[in-house]
């Protein structure tokens, strides 16, 4: 039983971070119809900036238990980088999808050099946050409290995002713009502002994800590309543009990976992409995606 709990907790922690990045990807695609390959860069940016922010907090004499809120704020602040990037992307909204892919891929590569320039080429780690929260016993398994906090934060963000989209006026406008941009504009919606808002929120989901994960791992130049690959598995499984799909897809990927690592470690990636292939064959639009008309 404890083995199962261990596997589920490990998979859920991975899924929690994956969800944040995939949710940003889904939100942007859902509204702006842009497949944003730079989502992995936002994740890495959050991780690097999180290290800088915690370094600053240490200099200011803040206690380690406050570093988690510092990281969340750091993720939100650096997520504002989405605003100028969205301004650049405006030039290709009406162009072919291949342009969008190319320009966001360009951002992905450019960001790598930005990280190299600002934070150096070697992986950066943060030692003083992950262990500051101690460990907890959960159904007979010792689990780092920080992992539980990240899972809780990710869930809270999922619920908050759902409420924002479903229950608020701006959320309704966002959904209306996603459904039919021309109609929304005809009704007086400033689509440009909505796009800027959506892209920045999507960017913030990635940067917060990166900032939250870095205390347990490391910020490295390669982390952006690696996460993009997994995020696309999440999107294919969950369905492009669906927030619920992002949540379920992230859980499927996280848990499949954890189960494979525990049972047949060599099958770690195979298990995930087996599901991707199955979904593409049986339900090409993904579990929660809308089939093309």
């Amino acid at each position, binding site marked *: 039983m*404890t*083995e199962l709990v*261990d*596997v589920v*907790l*490990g*998979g859920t*922690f*991975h899924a929690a*971070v994956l969800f944040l990045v995939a949710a940003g990807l889904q939100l942007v695609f859902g509204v702006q119809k842009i497949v944003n390959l730079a989502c992995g860069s936002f994740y890495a940016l959050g991780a690097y900036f999180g290290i800088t922010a915690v370094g600053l907090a240490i200099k200011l004499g803040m206690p380690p238990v406050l570093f988690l809120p510092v990281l969340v704020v750091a993720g939100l602040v650096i997520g504002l980088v989405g605003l100028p990037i969205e301004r650049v992307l405006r030039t290709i909204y009406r162009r072919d999808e291949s342009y969008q892919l190319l320009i966001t891929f360009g951002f992905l590569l450019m960001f790598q050099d930005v990280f*190299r320039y600002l934070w150096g*080429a*070697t*992986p950066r*780690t943060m*030692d003083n946050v*992950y*262990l500051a929260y101690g*460990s907890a016993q959960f159904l007979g*398994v*010792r*689990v*780092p409290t*920080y*992992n539980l906090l990240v899972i809780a934060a990710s869930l809270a963000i999922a619920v908050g995002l759902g409420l924002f989209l479903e229950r608020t006026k701006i959320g309704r406008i966002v959904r209306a713009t996603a459904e039919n941009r021309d109609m929304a504009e005809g009704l007086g919606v400033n689509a440009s502002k909505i796009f800027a808002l959506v892209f920045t929120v999507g960017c913030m989901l990635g940067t917060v994800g990166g900032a939250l*994960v870095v205390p*347990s*791992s*490391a910020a*490295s*130049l*390669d*982390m952006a590309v*690696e996460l993009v690959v997994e995020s696309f598995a999440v999107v294919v499984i969950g369905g492009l543009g669906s927030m619920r799909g992002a949540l379920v897809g992230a859980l499927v990927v996280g848990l499949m*990976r*954890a189960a494979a*690592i*525990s049972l047949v*470690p*060599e099958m770690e990636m195979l298990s995930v992409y087996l599901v991707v292939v199955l979904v593409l064959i049986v339900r090409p639009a993904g579990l929660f995606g809308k089939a093309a008309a």
Partner: protein
Amino acid sequence: MKLTRRDFSRLAGSGLVAAAISKLFAPALAQNKPLRIGIIAPRSGAAGTAGECGIRAVQWATERMNKEGGIAGRKFELVIEEETNPKDTIERLRRLILQEKVDAIHGLISTGVSLGVAPVAEEEQALVVMWDGTTQDGVKEMMPNSKYVFRSTDNECEAVMGSLLAVKHFKGKFKRVAGINPDYSYGRNNWEAFKQILARYGVETEFVVEQWPKIGTMDLTSHIAALNAAKPDLIFSSMLFADLPVFMKQGHAAGLFNGVKMVLPAAGWQINQLKKEFTPEGIIFGHNTLYFDHPQASPLQKAFVQDYMDRYKEAPHWEADRAYFALATYKAGVEAAQKAGGKWPTQEQVAEAMPGLEVESLGGKGRFRKDKIAEQVFYQGPSTNTNKYDFPTLASIDTFQAEQLQKPPGADFWEWIKTAKMPV
């Protein structure tokens, strides 16, 4: 102006004399120019820290050696290029040879890259002295008769030593064994070598789980869950790069190391990142060919470590030694070849002179064998957290020679490991 036959003869004669004079003094003129040594090392990505440490060491050595007269009386300078993937690195190697016209090339850490680079260097007849790169495909030597390419000690040396020390220090104290190793030939071969050595020494073991995270996996939570579930008494891991500190941090938080013995043969590469707060004591901790805190260190090592720590505020690791060793053996080779020939030697003559020359490197004495594979001194031992640093040091030091840890020329590694005379 009319050019007479006499004028022409005079001009032609003086031209010939000038040409003869320049020919006569060309080697002398060339020797007045500094030697150029190309360095190829990773400066980014997973191996970036290792490459940086090696580069710092050769820069330190360059300054020091140049002050003492350089190499055979000639000052030398470094031309640094980045080691990335095999294809791009080969292009940079060619650039160093053809455009920069370097006298030798040092560096290369990844065997994946050096395997591709070595045949090109042979073809170009360029002298290459590798820091940590080998020409092993798995454990099989692919270039046993190379003419220009000098390789590091075999990749498995540290694993063989770590395994022997597991027997020496832990025999009878563990039964359930787990492994978590990087998923490429280095990790696979190290794990297999460890299992073979335990079997050879009759250690009764049960291998309860094997984990193979790919390099750069930063979320090891699920791997740690699998290890925890297997309840091992001992964990063997040859993880490298940032992956190892991440594993230690996540493992510590999940309570993986409580009462568990550990063997980390390559831990010294990440020494500065392995903080005491998540690294338990008593680990068999590998420092490969340079243990920075050796109490009986040579004056050379002491001077280097002091300068390095003052300047960079961190401890140097074995890549510094490998880089220094490459430079020191090259220097010895050039000087020996020059002495033997009485003139400035060609790269071929240097390559012929280098094998067998013993040099003092940062970590101890070393040399290249006739098959141009290095023999150096290895340091490992049980770790302690009682020290002035924020990372572990060694409670006691075990010192083995490479001859005790690597297969002899031409031997099959798996056969050798079964029959070799081991130092424990």
